[in-house]
């Protein structure tokens, strides 16, 4: 190897994970995400795709193995707290992500946690909503929105933190084709360094990713 260091944005080395009293989910996963990569993560139900995302962000702790984010080893909650604002995770169910009494507060929640001033956080939230074409939802109550609207608001909530890397967990579940196309458009316009998409939606995979990996029998294998 040359002295040229190509720093991976996310690197998982030999990750093992098992839920209590359940079958092993991940058995020696090695995976890395480099700058500019747009990856699709495929695999059957219960293959451990979501688990992998949660391990990357330190929401779950691996039984064994090493997680490095932006070139630094992450082992403790303190390490993960630092990198979480830079990696945007979109949850499978938008209801898990939206809990504030109004859409604007939900979208500004992340920026405020990052220490932004109120006026700036608000401005950023409004801009983000506008870029997604949903500024009119600003003062609505999140639980009363339609499925598609909830999804777009949860995307706005993630993008308003301006993450460098996106982890999208089944972003189109429950969306019609029109909404799916809109989401693909929004994501292409967003200047992300890299992203990983979990989906069973071929249209989305074709529209968003350049390379696909398959998570099978607890390991990640390349399909292309």
């Amino acid at each position: 190897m040359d002295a040229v260091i190509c720093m991976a944005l996310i690197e998982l080395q030999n990750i093992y994970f098992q839920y209590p009293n359940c079958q092993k989910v991940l058995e020696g996963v090695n995976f890395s995400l480099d700058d500019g990569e747009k990856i699709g993560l495929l695999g059957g139900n219960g293959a451990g795709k979501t688990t992998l995302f949660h391990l990357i962000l330190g929401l779950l702790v691996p039984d064994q193995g090493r997680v490095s984010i932006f070139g630094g080893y992450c082992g403790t909650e303190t390490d993960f707290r630092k990198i979480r604002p830079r990696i945007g995770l979109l949850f499978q169910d938008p209801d898990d992500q939206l809990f504030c009494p109004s859409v604007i507060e939900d979208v500004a929640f992340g920026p405020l946690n990052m220490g932004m001033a109120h006026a700036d956080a608000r401005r950023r939230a409004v801009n983000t909503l506008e870029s997604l074409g949903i500024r009119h939802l600003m003062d609505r109550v999140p639980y009363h929105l339609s499925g598609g609207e909830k999804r777009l608001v949860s995307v706005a909530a993630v993008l308003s933190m301006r993450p460098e890397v996106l982890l999208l967990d089944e972003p189109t579940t429950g969306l019609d084709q029109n909404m799916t196309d809109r989401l693909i458009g929004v994501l292409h316009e967003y200047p992300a360094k890299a992203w990983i998409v979990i989906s069973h939606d071929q249209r989305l995979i074709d529209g968003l990713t350049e390379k696909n990996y398959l998570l099978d029998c607890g390991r990640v294998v390349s399909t292309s």
Partner: protein
Amino acid sequence: MTCERFASGNSILHRSDPRVKILLAAGFAVVTAVIETRTGQVLALLGGMILILSGGLLNRELFRRMAWVNFFLLMLWFILPVTTPGNAAAKIWSLDISREGLELALSVTLKCNAIVLANIALLSTSTIFAIAHALAHLNVPSRLVQLFFFSWRYFHVIYSEFRRLRRAAGVRGFEPATDMHTYMTYAHMIGMLFIRSLERGERVYKAMLCRGFDGTFWLLTHFHLHRRDFFLAFVSSAYILAIAGVEWL
């Protein structure tokens, strides 16, 4: 969800600073709870009603809530007159109805209605999020504030999960009856409810962590004391003091 049905509106109470309202509600409740004269109690009830009117809250939902409160108070009217020792005011069968018992039941009813009305008017006119935020500003320990906020949040989640489960059972032809099948079904539902709520709660917490949550709650619209807040604080405190004054004069 019934929690925030009064939270939207444009009255002086809706627009007032929740910090002021929390302090007033607490002051009102303490004074009303300890007063013993009938005049003071009636004044307190009147105060509660005035607050309700100034919040524009006189509607069906209010009556529904007050009906529940008074349903429980009704039980006191059955129990206190026959269990409190004192002068007999009347006799039903062989039971003495004591004057002191009736007085006591009336006191409790007046005080309780006054406090509930004032609390609805002062606290329900803010969103739960705003109340939680205001409590944090009033230096209530952060753990208590979070406990309060998440209880509400989980309550909402549990309630909607329960509705989903009941609907899912309903579409498969389940009709509650007094039999073993119904009890078993409800037991399963409640068990499932616990598991689902727990899992949902964990996912919500994880989502909050991902967005940099570190235990601090932020609110976009920050509180500033306006002239109307001073007005509300002044008028209400004066009224509370007047009630207390009646007691000691």
